[in-house]
């Protein structure tokens, strides 16, 4: 263990921290604004990687896959937040319709599987599937309207559980669409080279990751500190009720932040997919790490997320290199201590 070992490990840790910053900062902002822990954040990471794989597969462009995947998952985040993390409003009907359609489709497919003779296919099978599904969906829709969702906005536990339910749905969707194999995102050849600095080989890709995280971090910081929207977000983090009182549309802000969080996580998935790989189960592996970042850094604090990401990246790397048998323990035990001493995290505001 010479200086070179320490330098290489530190570099690896910092670049891993850069990746964790992308995942953790979104989770932190979502917590700050909405007071919920988004347990489907790991899924956004995984789905981002998968969407990027598809984009690369069809267009061959890695650079294009970054924005496309991030925007696609941001859209998923918006739909989830608008339709499911709030109960009332005009969109309640849309949500009930979506759910009714989903139930009807499952029902129809189940009937087809268990009793194939009940529904013979006189029409084209897709048309028949759509027709039968629609016929089942209508009564289900009216039943759901009658039951009506119990308001969920103020119930943090139910919101959190709902995001877990979605994490399971996303997991299955990813398995269905992309299969169960371990896949790799291959970055362009220019980024796979290494540069030699002072006798140490540094992969260019890891330098790119750090640069990307720094750029995004600065952009986020500027947006939060210098723009009107950022001020509104900060006000909502500090005191949502007061913010509403002075005329800030916290409803819109929570949608915006949720989309931003999903965007960043998906971006992390695309970037991280090149050296972690993209495989089923990655979602629930990233989630606790993102948690560690948020907890160490403090919830709702961008600077805290950066420090937390660095700390977790370094702790993870050095832990695995120095004490492989207890490496995860050395990562999560400090997290417990921090939470026990200061529940809002090291840099969190109460």
């Amino acid at each position: 263990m010479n200086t070179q070992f320490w330098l290489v490990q530190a570099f690896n840790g910092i670049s891993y921290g850069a990746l964790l910053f992308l995942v953790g900062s979104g989770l932190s902002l979502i917590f700050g604004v909405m007071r919920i822990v988004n347990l489907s954040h790991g899924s956004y990471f995984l789905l981002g990687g998968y969407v990027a794989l598809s984009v690369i597969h069809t267009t061959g462009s890695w650079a294009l896959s970054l924005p496309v995947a991030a925007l696609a998952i941001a859209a998923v985040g918006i739909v989830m937040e608008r339709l499911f993390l709030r109960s009332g409003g005009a969109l309640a009907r849309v949500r009930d319709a979506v759910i009714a359609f989903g139930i009807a489709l499952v029902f129809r497919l189940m009937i087809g599987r268990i009793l194939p003779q009940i529904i013979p296919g006189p029409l084209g099978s897709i048309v028949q599937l759509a027709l039968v599904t629609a016929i089942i969906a209508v009564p289900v829709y009216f039943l759901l309207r009658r039951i009506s969702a119990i308001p969920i906005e103020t119930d943090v536990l139910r919101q959190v559980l709902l995001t877990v339910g979605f994490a399971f749905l996303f997991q299955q969707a990813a398995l269905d669409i992309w299969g169960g194999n371990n896949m790799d995102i291959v970055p362009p050849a220019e980024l796979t080279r290494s540069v030699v600095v002072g006798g140490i080989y540094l992969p260019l890709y890891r330098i790119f990751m750090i640069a990307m995280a720094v750029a995004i971090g600065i952009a986020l910081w500027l947006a939060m500190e210098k723009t009107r929207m950022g001020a509104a977000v900060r006000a909502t983090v500090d005191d949502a009720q007061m913010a509403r009182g002075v005329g800030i549309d916290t409803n819109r802000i929570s949608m915006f932040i949720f989309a931003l969080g999903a965007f960043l996580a998906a971006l992390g998935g695309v970037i991280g997919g090149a050296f972690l790989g993209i495989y089923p189960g990655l979602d629930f592996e990233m989630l606790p790490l993102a948690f560690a970042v948020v907890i160490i850094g403090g919830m709702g604090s961008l600077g805290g997320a950066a420090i937390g990401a660095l700390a977790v990246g370094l702790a993870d790397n050095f832990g695995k290199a120095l004490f492989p048998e207890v490496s995860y323990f050395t990562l999560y035990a400090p997290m417990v201590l921090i939470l026990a001493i200061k529940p809002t995290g090291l840099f969190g505001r109460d």
Partner: protein
Amino acid sequence: MGTQRIKILIVAVILVALALIVPKSGSFVVLLATRAMAFAIVAMSLDILLGFTGLASLGQAAYFGVGAYLCAVLATKFHFGLGWDFWIVVVLGILIGMALAAIFGLFAIRASGVYFLMITLALGQCVWGLAYRWNSLTGGDNGINMSGRPNFGLDLSNEVTFFYLVLAFFTVSLLLLYLLVRSPFGKSLAGIRERELRMQILGYNTWLHKYIAFIIAGGFGGLAGVLWAQTNGHVSPETVVLTTSVDALLMVVLGGAGTLVGGAIGAAIVFGLREYLSTLVPWWQYVLGGVYVLTILYLPTGLMGIPERIRQARARSKKEPSQSGDAKKLASVPS
């Protein structure tokens, strides 16, 4: 009081029916029921925290896991617990669950709400990390394969005999937990759930109450872990992974938090759906995820809450028969 007796009677009838019907339904059902009942004990122990004390724990798999690993390590490394000393392992499993909860509780009980959720998650991850990485003790990712179940006159390698044993443990756990929540201690837990500050003002040491509840839940988790290890003959980090804790939490919510049997019903439904659907369609997890989302959105009190919701709906429509249409419209669109 009358309805309470009827409820107990229903549960007793179901248990007797299980004991009579399951052994005759083939080895697949026997194993399924055994696994569901072993896991139902964790779900019920979690209900003590979630439903009766108002603490949502995302780390219940930790106690389950240490119980399971204890059983597996003793059996494979020390050949202990293969005969009558299985009962010692059961006691040790309960004790190690309680001991771990006693340590973790010192960190966790201070927090509440989402913070409690996160700290229990972190604690659960600590245990998972050790199970996953501590190769020399836990076998790392591969886990530990156990060779056969104990035999102490009763040969537990017989699936039906083992089913009866787990059913007995399940019944005793249900009974003990029921007595716990009906006791004055259980009542004060409910008081803490409703309004902790008021309980403090009344002079209750709410921290100690929550701490004891946490330890009791850990003990039952450890017991369930021992049974789980013996059921599967294999223990791996899967046992302590985050999704296992999440599963237990969702089972309780699905069945109905604060009802005790809700956790068991949730476990039965989840295990049943999983095994049955996975033989039927490859996309079974959509159904499970969908059931979770629907329950949380439309039935926050769980399946056990359905009668109450129907009663409420009836009372509402009786009260305003003339303008029930308008009332419904208002109720469904909260401002």
